[in-house]
């Protein structure tokens, strides 16, 4: 097995989100029998840990790496270092200033804008929103928040505060409880990380406010999708990591085989984000299921 070329998909930390990418990678593996594809989690979501992981992969003889950099903006040099040794692709969040071959992924700013659209639609009278997120300073959170703010700017919908929880679910839930206690008349809640909407959903349910407060979600947690179907969550914005994994792996293989034409002029392969609401949630969930079960 050692003779097969190895392709690695390095993610930025352990989360369910990457389970879908893993399914995509698996699918690609079926179609690429001459390669060894793997998806690697750094044991912590820290730039240093991820960098170490990539260095070890290169030392271990990997042929190409696709990475969701923990911190693309300021990891230019370390990414360049990896990129100078093996072909490097970025995903999830781009690092345009590096020597990466191409970026394949979505735009968090666009996703935020879509969430803003959901909010405008669900709150025609306007209203006050409060957001919940794991790490408010992280790039993906910032871009989503900024995207949303840019859409609702000028309307009567307002994002008054965003509470962070350091990816601690207990605190995530407590934040929602406290927000509700401090602002009993809040109109809308936004969950920016995948686990935030379910926590919002539960607190609203327990306090009997489900349906009264508009919930806007990101990502495809089963509870989120359930809430969307039920109508208690106005809508959710989903990315498509499955395609990132699937298309990304195929792209890397082609590239290694010498086909440079797969990389477009601007080096960007954007997989658009989708708005899921009551109308299309069933179809989306069916697709998800079949992908995860490897169908």
């Amino acid at each position: 097995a050692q003779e097969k070329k190895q392709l690695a998909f390095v993610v930025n930390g352990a989360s369910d989100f990457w389970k879908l990418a893993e399914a995509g990678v698996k699918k690609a593996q079926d179609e690429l029998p001459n390669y060894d594809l793997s998806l690697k989690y750094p044991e912590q979501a820290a730039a240093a840990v991820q960098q170490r992981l990539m260095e070890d992969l290169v030392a271990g003889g990997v042929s190409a790496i696709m990475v969701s950099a923990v911190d693309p903006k300021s990891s230019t040099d370390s990414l360049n270092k990896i990129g100078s040794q093996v072909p490097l692709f970025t995903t999830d969040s781009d690092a345009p200033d590096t020597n990466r071959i191409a970026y394949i992924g979505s735009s968090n700013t666009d996703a935020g804008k879509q969430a803003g659209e959901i909010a405008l639609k669900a709150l025609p009278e306007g209203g006050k929103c409060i957001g919940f997120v794991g790490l408010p300073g992280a790039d993906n959170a910032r871009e989503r928040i900024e995207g949303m703010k840019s859409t609702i700017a000028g309307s009567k919908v307002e994002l008054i505060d965003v509470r962070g929880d350091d990816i601690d679910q207990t605190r995530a839930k407590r934040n929602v409880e406290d927000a509700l206690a401090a602002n009993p008349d809040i109109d809308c809640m936004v969950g920016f990380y995948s686990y935030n909407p379910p926590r919002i959903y539960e607190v609203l349910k327990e306090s009997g406010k489900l349906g009264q407060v508009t919930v806007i979600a990101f990502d495809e947690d089963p509870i989120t999708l359930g809430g969307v179907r039920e109508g208690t969550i106005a809508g959710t914005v989903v990315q498509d990591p499955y395609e990132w994994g699937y298309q990304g792996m195929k792209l890397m293989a082609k590239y290694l085989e010498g086909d440079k034409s797969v990389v477009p002029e601007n080096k960007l392969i954007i997989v658009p984000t989708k708005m899921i609401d009551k109308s299309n949630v069933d179809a989306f969930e069916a697709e998800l299921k079949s992908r995860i079960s490897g169908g």
Partner: protein
Amino acid sequence: MINRKDLWLLILIIIVGTVVAIINPRFLSPINLSNTANLIGLFGIFAVAQAFVIISGGIELSVGSIIALLGVVFIDLVASEAVNPALAFVIVVAIGCLIGLLHGFLVAKLGLQPFVVTLCGLLIYRGIARYYTEDATAGFPFGASFPTLEWLTAGRFYGIPHSLIAFIVITLVMGVVLHKSVFGRYLFAVGKNEEAARYSGIHTARITIAAYVICCGLTAVAAVFIAMYTRSISPSSHGNFYELYAIAAAVLGGCSLRGGEGSIVGVVLGTVLLQVLQNLVNLLGIPSSLNFAVMGSVILIGVLADQQISRRAARVKAPAG
């Protein structure tokens, strides 16, 4: 029963509470009090558990990892509906006790340092939890409902969360065990001076092991309550740093990490203070990035003031005596 140190902690809590209530009267709203009480219950159970090990002269660093691992196991058992929730609860607590037995054995019989044993536990149990779930979040599917289980663990009785009730019951029982029972006395003796305890015919190893079993067993109970609170567990982050909460609560409450000192009342008050601080950050709209800083500062100020007051008290008392 309440000693000077505990009294001071109580005063500190009242001061902090009053200040918060003045700035934002919603602090005293029933819903907020109920929410805070719920979290006091959740965190209090494993803080009391930690106190037992600390009094024995040890430390239990794997609390957060145990909460993650056992939470995952519990949700998995219940969600798959393979076993009845009551049985699942028993299984999880039994695993907790086994973990405690193992830690106690390594510390008391093989003579390893508690810090090392439980640090390894911290690493290993989280690793197992992550491997077991393949790093995926464990949770109940949408709409899954276990009414009795949910009512028992996350329900409220006239606004009093059941987690708080469980905590109070556990605290009362453990208070008697610690302060009134032969075992409790032996535990303090072992923590203070293990050699002298052995010379007095106390089975020191057994006492130490029992402390770890109690600690990990109660932590397992807390793991179930916490799992039912979040209803989903991402194994890589669930419970991270909870050991520090537990140790901070115990130490705030007068436990000495040198062993042999501490009281249940103190630990309870320590837990209350930490949760009130968390609540304060959210209610006063302090940036969440400052959450930790606020907590750290108040603990430090509290401990410092306590220290200074007790020094002065000792000085005033001396000539009079």
